[in-house]
Protein backbone atom coordinates (compact mmCIF):
# COMPACT_ATOMS: atom_id res chain seq x y z
CA UNK A 1 0.00 0.00 0.00
CA UNK A 2 1.45 3.29 -1.12
CA UNK A 3 1.25 6.16 1.33
CA UNK A 4 1.82 9.68 0.09
CA UNK A 5 4.55 11.57 1.94
CA UNK A 6 2.05 14.12 3.30
CA UNK A 7 -0.30 11.36 4.35
CA UNK A 8 2.53 9.84 6.37
CA UNK A 9 3.01 13.20 8.11
CA UNK A 10 -0.72 13.44 8.76
CA UNK A 11 -1.09 9.89 10.10
CA UNK A 12 1.97 10.34 12.31
CA UNK A 13 0.49 13.52 13.73
CA UNK A 14 -2.92 11.87 14.23
CA UNK A 15 -1.73 8.65 15.79
CA UNK A 16 0.86 10.57 17.82
CA UNK A 17 -1.88 12.80 19.28
CA UNK A 18 -3.92 9.72 20.03
CA UNK A 19 -1.07 8.13 21.96
CA UNK A 20 -0.47 11.40 23.80
CA UNK A 21 -4.16 11.76 24.79
CA UNK A 22 -4.32 8.18 26.02
CA UNK A 23 -1.06 8.56 27.94
CA UNK A 24 -2.32 11.71 29.66
CA UNK A 25 -5.56 9.95 30.59
CA UNK A 26 -3.75 6.81 31.73
CA UNK A 27 -1.31 8.74 33.92
CA UNK A 28 -4.02 10.91 35.47
CA UNK A 29 -6.23 7.87 36.09
CA UNK A 30 -3.72 5.39 37.44
CA UNK A 31 -0.99 7.60 38.92
CA UNK A 32 -3.10 10.54 40.16
CA UNK A 33 -6.39 8.77 40.78
CA UNK A 34 -8.59 10.90 38.51
CA UNK A 35 -10.96 8.05 37.77
CA UNK A 36 -14.58 7.95 36.70
CA UNK A 37 -17.10 6.85 39.35
CA UNK A 38 -16.96 3.05 39.21
CA UNK A 39 -17.98 1.77 42.60
CA UNK A 40 -18.46 -2.01 42.62
CA UNK A 41 -20.87 -2.52 45.53
CA UNK A 42 -24.36 -3.78 44.91
CA UNK A 43 -27.48 -3.45 47.00
CA UNK A 44 -30.99 -4.89 46.90
CA UNK A 45 -33.00 -2.04 45.43
CA UNK A 46 -36.27 -3.59 46.67
CA UNK A 47 -35.08 -3.65 50.29
CA UNK A 48 -33.19 -0.43 50.83
CA UNK A 49 -34.66 -0.16 54.37
CA UNK A 50 -32.54 -3.13 55.35
CA UNK A 51 -29.36 -1.71 53.85
CA UNK A 52 -26.98 1.13 54.71
CA UNK A 53 -29.51 3.32 52.90
CA UNK A 54 -32.17 2.84 55.58
CA UNK A 55 -31.56 6.37 56.85
CA UNK A 56 -30.16 8.45 53.98
CA UNK A 57 -28.34 11.64 54.91
CA UNK A 58 -24.99 13.13 55.83
CA UNK A 59 -22.64 11.81 58.46
CA UNK A 60 -19.31 13.25 59.52
CA UNK A 61 -16.35 10.92 59.16
CA UNK A 62 -13.54 13.17 60.32
CA UNK A 63 -12.89 16.86 60.72
CA UNK A 64 -13.40 17.86 57.11
CA UNK A 65 -14.82 14.71 55.55
CA UNK A 66 -18.49 13.84 55.27
CA UNK A 67 -20.29 10.91 53.78
CA UNK A 68 -23.60 11.60 52.05
CA UNK A 69 -25.72 8.50 51.46
CA UNK A 70 -28.47 9.43 49.04
CA UNK A 71 -31.33 7.58 47.39
CA UNK A 72 -32.41 8.68 43.93
CA UNK A 73 -36.01 7.99 42.98
CA UNK A 74 -38.63 9.24 40.56
CA UNK A 75 -38.55 12.30 40.79
CA UNK A 76 -36.21 13.49 43.51
CA UNK A 77 -33.52 12.55 45.99
CA UNK A 78 -33.73 11.53 49.60
CA UNK A 79 -32.90 13.78 51.39
CA UNK A 80 -33.84 16.75 49.22
CA UNK A 81 -31.31 19.08 50.87
CA UNK A 82 -28.01 18.45 52.61
CA UNK A 83 -25.74 20.88 54.41
CA UNK A 84 -21.96 20.85 54.84
CA UNK A 85 -19.48 23.55 55.93
CA UNK A 86 -17.25 25.13 53.30
CA UNK A 87 -13.95 23.37 52.73
CA UNK A 88 -15.31 19.93 53.44
CA UNK A 89 -14.88 16.92 51.24
CA UNK A 90 -18.08 15.02 50.66
CA UNK A 91 -18.07 11.37 49.69
CA UNK A 92 -21.30 10.72 47.84
CA UNK A 93 -22.72 7.21 47.92
CA UNK A 94 -25.84 6.98 45.82
CA UNK A 95 -28.26 4.30 44.76
CA UNK A 96 -31.66 4.21 43.12
CA UNK A 97 -34.86 2.73 44.49
CA UNK A 98 -36.52 2.47 41.07
CA UNK A 99 -35.20 3.28 37.57
CA UNK A 100 -31.92 4.62 36.19
CA UNK A 101 -31.12 8.18 37.29
CA UNK A 102 -28.06 10.34 37.39
CA UNK A 103 -26.51 12.76 39.85
CA UNK A 104 -24.81 15.84 38.45
CA UNK A 105 -23.65 19.08 40.04
CA UNK A 106 -23.29 21.61 37.20
CA UNK A 107 -19.95 23.41 37.11
CA UNK A 108 -18.13 20.59 38.91
CA UNK A 109 -16.77 17.20 37.87
CA UNK A 110 -19.52 15.46 39.84
CA UNK A 111 -21.59 13.52 37.32
CA UNK A 112 -22.50 9.90 37.70
CA UNK A 113 -25.08 7.33 36.71
CA UNK A 114 -27.27 5.82 39.39
CA UNK A 115 -28.46 2.35 38.45
CA UNK A 116 -30.81 0.36 40.68
CA UNK A 117 -29.05 -2.53 42.42
CA UNK A 118 -25.72 -0.72 42.40
CA UNK A 119 -24.10 1.90 44.61
CA UNK A 120 -22.15 4.58 42.82
CA UNK A 121 -19.60 6.77 44.51
CA UNK A 122 -17.67 9.95 43.94
CA UNK A 123 -16.21 12.72 46.06
CA UNK A 124 -15.94 16.46 45.81
CA UNK A 125 -14.39 19.21 47.92
CA UNK A 126 -16.58 22.30 48.21
CA UNK A 127 -14.24 25.28 48.38
CA UNK A 128 -16.88 27.97 47.76
CA UNK A 129 -19.86 28.57 50.02
CA UNK A 130 -23.31 28.76 48.47
CA UNK A 131 -26.18 26.70 47.24
CA UNK A 132 -25.37 23.97 44.76
CA UNK A 133 -28.02 22.54 42.51
CA UNK A 134 -28.05 18.81 41.78
CA UNK A 135 -29.76 17.58 38.64
CA UNK A 136 -30.77 14.25 37.21
CA UNK A 137 -29.56 14.12 33.61
CA UNK A 138 -30.83 10.66 32.69
CA UNK A 139 -34.43 10.44 31.51
CA UNK A 140 -36.36 8.65 34.25
CA UNK A 141 -40.04 9.24 33.47
CA UNK A 142 -42.64 11.94 33.01
CA UNK A 143 -41.40 14.11 35.90
CA UNK A 144 -37.72 13.88 34.98
CA UNK A 145 -37.32 17.62 34.47
CA UNK A 146 -38.34 18.28 38.09
CA UNK A 147 -35.79 15.93 39.59
CA UNK A 148 -33.27 17.90 41.63
CA UNK A 149 -31.87 18.49 45.11
CA UNK A 150 -29.77 21.13 46.90
CA UNK A 151 -26.45 21.13 48.65
CA UNK A 152 -26.02 24.02 51.08
CA UNK A 153 -22.37 24.83 51.63
CA UNK A 154 -22.30 27.09 54.67
CA UNK A 155 -19.52 29.63 55.28
Amino acid at each position, binding site marked *: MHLHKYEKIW*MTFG*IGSLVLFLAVLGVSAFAFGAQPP*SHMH*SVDSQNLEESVFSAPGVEQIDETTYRARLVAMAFGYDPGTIEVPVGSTVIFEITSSDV*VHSFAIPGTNV*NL*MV*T*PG*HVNMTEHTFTEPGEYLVLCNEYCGTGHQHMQMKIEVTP
Partner: protein
Amino acid sequence: MMNQSNLAFKNNHYEPEIGVDPRDGKLAFYYVVIAFSAFLLGILGGLLQGLSRGGMIELPSWLGYYQILTAHGVLLALVFTTYIIYGFLYAGMSRTHGAFSPRLRKTGWIGFILTSLGTGMATVMILANEASVLYTFYAPLQAHYIFYFGLVFFIVGTWVTGIPMLVHYFKWKKTHPGEPAPLFGFMTTATILLWIIAGLGVAATVIGQMIPWALGMTDEINVVLSRSLFWYFGHPLVYFWIMPAYMVWYLVVPKVIGGKLFSASLAKLAFVLFLLFSIPVGFHHQLMESGISVFWKYVQTILTFVVVVPSLLTAFSIFATFEQTGRE
Protein backbone atom coordinates in the same frame (compact mmCIF):
# COMPACT_ATOMS: atom_id res chain seq x y z
CA MET B 1 -10.21 27.20 -13.89
CA MET B 2 -13.97 26.95 -13.96
CA ASN B 3 -13.83 25.98 -17.63
CA GLN B 4 -11.29 23.30 -17.05
CA SER B 5 -13.23 21.51 -14.40
CA ASN B 6 -16.34 21.68 -16.52
CA LEU B 7 -14.45 20.00 -19.31
CA ALA B 8 -13.25 17.29 -17.01
CA PHE B 9 -16.82 16.84 -15.96
CA LYS B 10 -17.93 16.21 -19.52
CA ASN B 11 -14.97 14.06 -20.50
CA ASN B 12 -15.75 11.70 -17.69
CA HIS B 13 -18.93 10.59 -19.49
CA TYR B 14 -21.15 11.71 -16.70
CA GLU B 15 -24.43 9.91 -17.21
CA PRO B 16 -27.44 11.36 -15.47
CA GLU B 17 -29.60 8.24 -15.89
CA ILE B 18 -29.52 6.17 -12.76
CA GLY B 19 -29.18 2.72 -14.20
CA VAL B 20 -30.75 0.71 -11.42
CA ASP B 21 -32.89 -2.19 -12.55
CA PRO B 22 -36.46 -0.90 -12.14
CA ARG B 23 -37.50 -3.99 -10.16
CA ASP B 24 -34.72 -3.30 -7.66
CA GLY B 25 -35.38 0.40 -7.88
CA LYS B 26 -38.89 -0.21 -6.62
CA LEU B 27 -37.73 -1.70 -3.32
CA ALA B 28 -35.12 1.00 -2.90
CA PHE B 29 -37.78 3.59 -3.66
CA TYR B 30 -40.06 2.25 -0.92
CA TYR B 31 -37.18 2.34 1.54
CA VAL B 32 -36.55 5.97 0.69
CA VAL B 33 -40.26 6.86 0.85
CA ILE B 34 -40.61 5.43 4.36
CA ALA B 35 -37.32 7.07 5.35
CA PHE B 36 -38.56 10.51 4.43
CA SER B 37 -42.03 9.97 5.89
CA ALA B 38 -40.36 9.08 9.19
CA PHE B 39 -38.07 12.06 8.77
CA LEU B 40 -41.00 14.40 8.29
CA LEU B 41 -42.88 13.08 11.33
CA GLY B 42 -39.67 13.07 13.37
CA ILE B 43 -38.71 16.67 12.68
CA LEU B 44 -42.29 17.71 13.39
CA GLY B 45 -41.79 16.14 16.82
CA GLY B 46 -38.58 18.12 17.22
CA LEU B 47 -40.35 21.34 16.29
CA LEU B 48 -43.14 20.70 18.81
CA GLN B 49 -40.58 19.99 21.54
CA GLY B 50 -38.70 23.17 20.81
CA LEU B 51 -41.84 25.27 20.80
CA SER B 52 -43.19 23.76 24.00
CA ARG B 53 -39.80 23.96 25.80
CA GLY B 54 -39.49 27.55 24.71
CA GLY B 55 -42.93 28.27 26.13
CA MET B 56 -44.38 29.30 22.76
CA ILE B 57 -47.06 26.61 22.79
CA GLU B 58 -48.65 24.37 25.35
CA LEU B 59 -48.93 20.71 24.43
CA PRO B 60 -52.45 19.30 24.61
CA SER B 61 -53.08 17.05 27.59
CA TRP B 62 -53.19 13.91 25.45
CA LEU B 63 -49.71 14.55 24.06
CA GLY B 64 -46.73 14.13 26.37
CA TYR B 65 -43.39 15.88 25.93
CA TYR B 66 -41.42 12.65 26.41
CA GLN B 67 -43.84 10.85 24.14
CA ILE B 68 -42.91 13.23 21.32
CA LEU B 69 -39.26 12.99 22.31
CA THR B 70 -39.45 9.20 21.98
CA ALA B 71 -41.15 9.46 18.59
CA HIS B 72 -38.55 12.02 17.53
CA GLY B 73 -35.66 9.76 18.59
CA VAL B 74 -37.02 6.50 17.22
CA LEU B 75 -38.19 7.99 13.92
CA LEU B 76 -35.02 9.95 13.22
CA ALA B 77 -32.28 7.87 14.83
CA LEU B 78 -33.58 4.42 13.99
CA VAL B 79 -36.23 4.51 11.27
CA PHE B 80 -35.02 7.31 9.00
CA THR B 81 -31.36 6.26 9.13
CA THR B 82 -31.94 2.56 8.61
CA TYR B 83 -34.40 3.02 5.75
CA ILE B 84 -32.38 5.61 3.87
CA ILE B 85 -29.23 3.52 4.27
CA TYR B 86 -30.95 0.36 3.06
CA GLY B 87 -32.44 2.20 0.10
CA PHE B 88 -29.03 3.58 -0.78
CA LEU B 89 -27.20 0.26 -0.38
CA TYR B 90 -29.84 -1.74 -2.22
CA ALA B 91 -30.02 0.63 -5.18
CA GLY B 92 -26.24 0.93 -5.24
CA MET B 93 -25.73 -2.83 -5.24
CA SER B 94 -28.12 -3.18 -8.17
CA ARG B 95 -26.36 -0.35 -9.99
CA THR B 96 -22.81 -1.63 -9.48
CA HIS B 97 -23.31 -5.40 -9.44
CA GLY B 98 -26.25 -5.78 -11.79
CA ALA B 99 -29.88 -6.65 -11.05
CA PHE B 100 -30.64 -8.92 -8.12
CA SER B 101 -31.90 -12.41 -8.90
CA PRO B 102 -35.67 -12.85 -8.33
CA ARG B 103 -35.01 -14.99 -5.27
CA LEU B 104 -32.71 -12.47 -3.66
CA ARG B 105 -35.10 -9.66 -4.50
CA LYS B 106 -37.95 -11.57 -2.90
CA THR B 107 -35.89 -12.03 0.27
CA GLY B 108 -35.20 -8.31 0.18
CA TRP B 109 -38.92 -7.63 0.11
CA ILE B 110 -39.62 -10.05 2.95
CA GLY B 111 -37.08 -8.21 5.07
CA PHE B 112 -38.57 -4.88 4.11
CA ILE B 113 -42.04 -6.05 5.15
CA LEU B 114 -40.76 -7.42 8.47
CA THR B 115 -38.87 -4.21 9.22
CA SER B 116 -41.89 -2.10 8.34
CA LEU B 117 -44.18 -4.26 10.44
CA GLY B 118 -41.84 -3.69 13.38
CA THR B 119 -41.68 0.02 12.67
CA GLY B 120 -45.46 0.15 12.61
CA MET B 121 -45.82 -1.72 15.90
CA ALA B 122 -43.31 0.48 17.70
CA THR B 123 -44.75 3.68 16.23
CA VAL B 124 -48.30 2.79 17.22
CA MET B 125 -47.21 2.04 20.79
CA ILE B 126 -45.35 5.33 21.01
CA LEU B 127 -48.32 7.26 19.66
CA ALA B 128 -50.56 5.44 22.17
CA ASN B 129 -48.23 6.69 24.93
CA GLU B 130 -47.47 3.10 25.90
CA ALA B 131 -43.78 3.40 25.13
CA SER B 132 -42.50 6.81 26.24
CA VAL B 133 -39.11 5.34 27.07
CA LEU B 134 -36.93 7.30 24.61
CA TYR B 135 -35.06 5.52 21.89
CA THR B 136 -32.61 4.10 24.44
CA PHE B 137 -35.47 2.33 26.35
CA TYR B 138 -33.33 1.75 29.45
CA ALA B 139 -34.80 -0.80 31.84
CA PRO B 140 -36.42 -0.67 34.30
CA LEU B 141 -38.46 1.94 32.50
CA GLN B 142 -40.97 -0.34 30.86
CA ALA B 143 -42.79 -0.11 27.55
CA HIS B 144 -45.68 -2.18 26.25
CA TYR B 145 -44.49 -5.59 25.06
CA ILE B 146 -45.72 -4.81 21.53
CA PHE B 147 -43.06 -2.07 21.39
CA TYR B 148 -40.35 -4.66 22.14
CA PHE B 149 -41.77 -7.11 19.60
CA GLY B 150 -41.73 -4.24 17.10
CA LEU B 151 -38.03 -3.72 17.78
CA VAL B 152 -37.32 -7.40 17.20
CA PHE B 153 -39.18 -7.40 13.87
CA PHE B 154 -37.36 -4.25 12.88
CA ILE B 155 -33.90 -5.69 13.58
CA VAL B 156 -34.58 -9.16 12.18
CA GLY B 157 -36.15 -7.61 9.07
CA THR B 158 -33.00 -5.61 8.39
CA TRP B 159 -30.94 -8.79 8.70
CA VAL B 160 -33.23 -10.53 6.20
CA THR B 161 -32.74 -7.72 3.66
CA GLY B 162 -29.03 -7.55 4.44
CA ILE B 163 -28.38 -11.15 3.49
CA PRO B 164 -29.37 -10.85 -0.23
CA MET B 165 -27.00 -7.90 -0.52
CA LEU B 166 -24.14 -9.95 0.90
CA VAL B 167 -25.04 -12.92 -1.34
CA HIS B 168 -25.25 -10.62 -4.36
CA TYR B 169 -21.71 -9.37 -3.71
CA PHE B 170 -20.20 -12.82 -3.23
CA LYS B 171 -22.05 -14.18 -6.28
CA TRP B 172 -20.56 -11.36 -8.34
CA LYS B 173 -17.08 -12.24 -7.10
CA LYS B 174 -17.62 -15.87 -8.01
CA THR B 175 -18.81 -15.11 -11.54
CA HIS B 176 -16.02 -12.56 -12.11
CA PRO B 177 -12.91 -14.39 -10.93
CA GLY B 178 -9.77 -12.33 -10.97
CA GLU B 179 -11.62 -9.06 -11.50
CA PRO B 180 -11.44 -6.43 -8.81
CA ALA B 181 -14.91 -6.17 -7.31
CA PRO B 182 -16.63 -2.78 -7.33
CA LEU B 183 -15.75 -0.87 -4.18
CA PHE B 184 -19.41 -0.22 -3.52
CA GLY B 185 -19.97 -3.93 -2.88
CA PHE B 186 -16.97 -4.18 -0.59
CA MET B 187 -18.17 -1.24 1.46
CA THR B 188 -21.77 -2.46 1.53
CA THR B 189 -20.58 -5.84 2.77
CA ALA B 190 -18.60 -4.22 5.58
CA THR B 191 -21.58 -2.03 6.52
CA ILE B 192 -24.11 -4.89 6.54
CA LEU B 193 -21.77 -7.15 8.50
CA LEU B 194 -21.30 -4.41 11.06
CA TRP B 195 -25.04 -3.93 11.32
CA ILE B 196 -25.73 -7.65 11.76
CA ILE B 197 -23.04 -8.01 14.44
CA ALA B 198 -24.25 -4.90 16.26
CA GLY B 199 -27.88 -5.98 16.10
CA LEU B 200 -27.04 -9.15 18.04
CA GLY B 201 -26.66 -7.03 21.18
CA VAL B 202 -30.01 -5.31 21.00
CA ALA B 203 -31.72 -8.54 19.93
CA ALA B 204 -30.22 -10.30 22.95
CA THR B 205 -31.44 -7.73 25.47
CA VAL B 206 -34.87 -7.34 23.88
CA ILE B 207 -35.57 -11.06 23.38
CA GLY B 208 -33.69 -12.39 26.39
CA GLN B 209 -34.48 -9.68 28.95
CA MET B 210 -37.11 -7.13 27.99
CA ILE B 211 -39.83 -9.33 26.45
CA PRO B 212 -40.01 -11.94 29.24
CA TRP B 213 -40.01 -9.08 31.74
CA ALA B 214 -42.64 -6.97 29.90
CA LEU B 215 -44.85 -10.04 29.61
CA GLY B 216 -44.54 -10.59 33.35
CA MET B 217 -42.69 -13.88 33.05
CA THR B 218 -39.82 -12.51 35.12
CA ASP B 219 -40.00 -9.62 37.54
CA GLU B 220 -36.30 -8.83 37.75
CA ILE B 221 -34.04 -7.46 35.08
CA ASN B 222 -30.27 -7.02 35.12
CA VAL B 223 -30.09 -3.31 34.43
CA VAL B 224 -26.35 -2.92 33.86
CA LEU B 225 -26.24 -5.94 31.55
CA SER B 226 -29.16 -4.61 29.52
CA ARG B 227 -27.38 -1.27 29.18
CA SER B 228 -24.17 -2.99 28.05
CA LEU B 229 -26.06 -5.02 25.47
CA PHE B 230 -27.90 -1.94 24.28
CA TRP B 231 -24.67 0.01 23.80
CA TYR B 232 -22.97 -2.96 22.19
CA PHE B 233 -25.53 -2.09 19.51
CA GLY B 234 -25.90 1.64 20.10
CA HIS B 235 -22.32 2.59 19.46
CA PRO B 236 -21.77 0.63 16.22
CA LEU B 237 -25.14 2.10 15.22
CA VAL B 238 -23.39 5.42 14.64
CA TYR B 239 -20.79 3.70 12.44
CA PHE B 240 -23.67 2.18 10.54
CA TRP B 241 -24.71 5.77 9.83
CA ILE B 242 -21.21 7.01 9.10
CA MET B 243 -20.17 4.24 6.71
CA PRO B 244 -22.76 5.04 4.00
CA ALA B 245 -21.79 8.70 4.37
CA TYR B 246 -18.18 7.68 3.82
CA MET B 247 -19.31 5.64 0.82
CA VAL B 248 -20.75 8.83 -0.63
CA TRP B 249 -17.50 10.66 0.08
CA TYR B 250 -15.31 7.91 -1.35
CA LEU B 251 -17.43 6.89 -4.35
CA VAL B 252 -20.03 9.50 -5.21
CA VAL B 253 -18.18 12.75 -4.56
CA PRO B 254 -15.24 11.89 -6.88
CA LYS B 255 -17.75 11.13 -9.64
CA VAL B 256 -19.75 14.27 -9.08
CA ILE B 257 -16.67 16.51 -9.24
CA GLY B 258 -15.34 14.57 -12.23
CA GLY B 259 -12.24 13.30 -10.49
CA LYS B 260 -11.17 9.96 -9.17
CA LEU B 261 -10.78 8.29 -5.84
CA PHE B 262 -7.44 9.05 -4.20
CA SER B 263 -6.72 5.49 -3.17
CA ALA B 264 -8.98 2.44 -3.31
CA SER B 265 -6.80 0.35 -1.04
CA LEU B 266 -6.82 3.01 1.69
CA ALA B 267 -10.60 3.28 1.37
CA LYS B 268 -10.90 -0.48 1.83
CA LEU B 269 -8.55 -0.37 4.80
CA ALA B 270 -10.69 2.34 6.42
CA PHE B 271 -13.81 0.19 6.12
CA VAL B 272 -12.11 -2.93 7.48
CA LEU B 273 -10.85 -0.91 10.45
CA PHE B 274 -14.32 0.47 11.09
CA LEU B 275 -15.79 -3.01 11.11
CA LEU B 276 -13.12 -4.31 13.50
CA PHE B 277 -13.11 -1.37 15.89
CA SER B 278 -16.87 -1.13 16.05
CA ILE B 279 -17.37 -4.34 17.93
CA PRO B 280 -15.93 -3.79 21.40
CA VAL B 281 -16.48 -0.09 22.11
CA GLY B 282 -20.04 0.38 23.39
CA PHE B 283 -18.95 0.46 27.05
CA HIS B 284 -17.84 4.06 26.72
CA HIS B 285 -21.49 4.97 27.17
CA GLN B 286 -21.17 3.54 30.68
CA LEU B 287 -18.04 5.35 31.78
CA MET B 288 -19.84 7.10 34.66
CA GLU B 289 -21.55 3.97 35.88
CA SER B 290 -21.01 1.66 38.85
CA GLY B 291 -20.44 -2.05 38.42
CA ILE B 292 -17.76 -1.73 35.71
CA SER B 293 -14.14 -1.50 36.78
CA VAL B 294 -11.85 1.40 35.96
CA PHE B 295 -9.48 -0.93 34.16
CA TRP B 296 -12.13 -1.96 31.62
CA LYS B 297 -13.22 1.63 31.22
CA TYR B 298 -9.66 2.55 30.29
CA VAL B 299 -9.43 -0.33 27.81
CA GLN B 300 -12.70 0.87 26.27
CA THR B 301 -11.38 4.41 26.06
CA ILE B 302 -8.36 3.20 24.11
CA LEU B 303 -10.54 1.18 21.74
CA THR B 304 -12.83 4.14 21.24
CA PHE B 305 -9.98 6.52 20.47
CA VAL B 306 -8.42 4.10 17.99
CA VAL B 307 -11.47 4.52 15.78
CA VAL B 308 -10.04 7.89 14.81
CA VAL B 309 -7.52 6.10 12.54
CA PRO B 310 -9.95 5.23 9.69
CA SER B 311 -11.37 8.74 9.98
CA LEU B 312 -7.89 10.26 9.64
CA LEU B 313 -7.41 8.20 6.47
CA THR B 314 -10.77 9.33 5.18
CA ALA B 315 -10.16 13.01 5.86
CA PHE B 316 -6.91 12.93 3.92
CA SER B 317 -8.45 10.97 1.09
CA ILE B 318 -11.36 13.38 0.62
CA PHE B 319 -9.19 16.48 0.53
CA ALA B 320 -6.70 14.75 -1.75
CA THR B 321 -9.49 13.82 -4.18
CA PHE B 322 -10.58 17.44 -4.28
CA GLU B 323 -7.09 18.79 -4.71
CA GLN B 324 -6.09 16.33 -7.42
CA THR B 325 -9.23 17.03 -9.39
CA GLY B 326 -8.72 20.76 -8.97
CA ARG B 327 -5.16 20.56 -10.25
CA GLU B 328 -6.03 18.34 -13.26
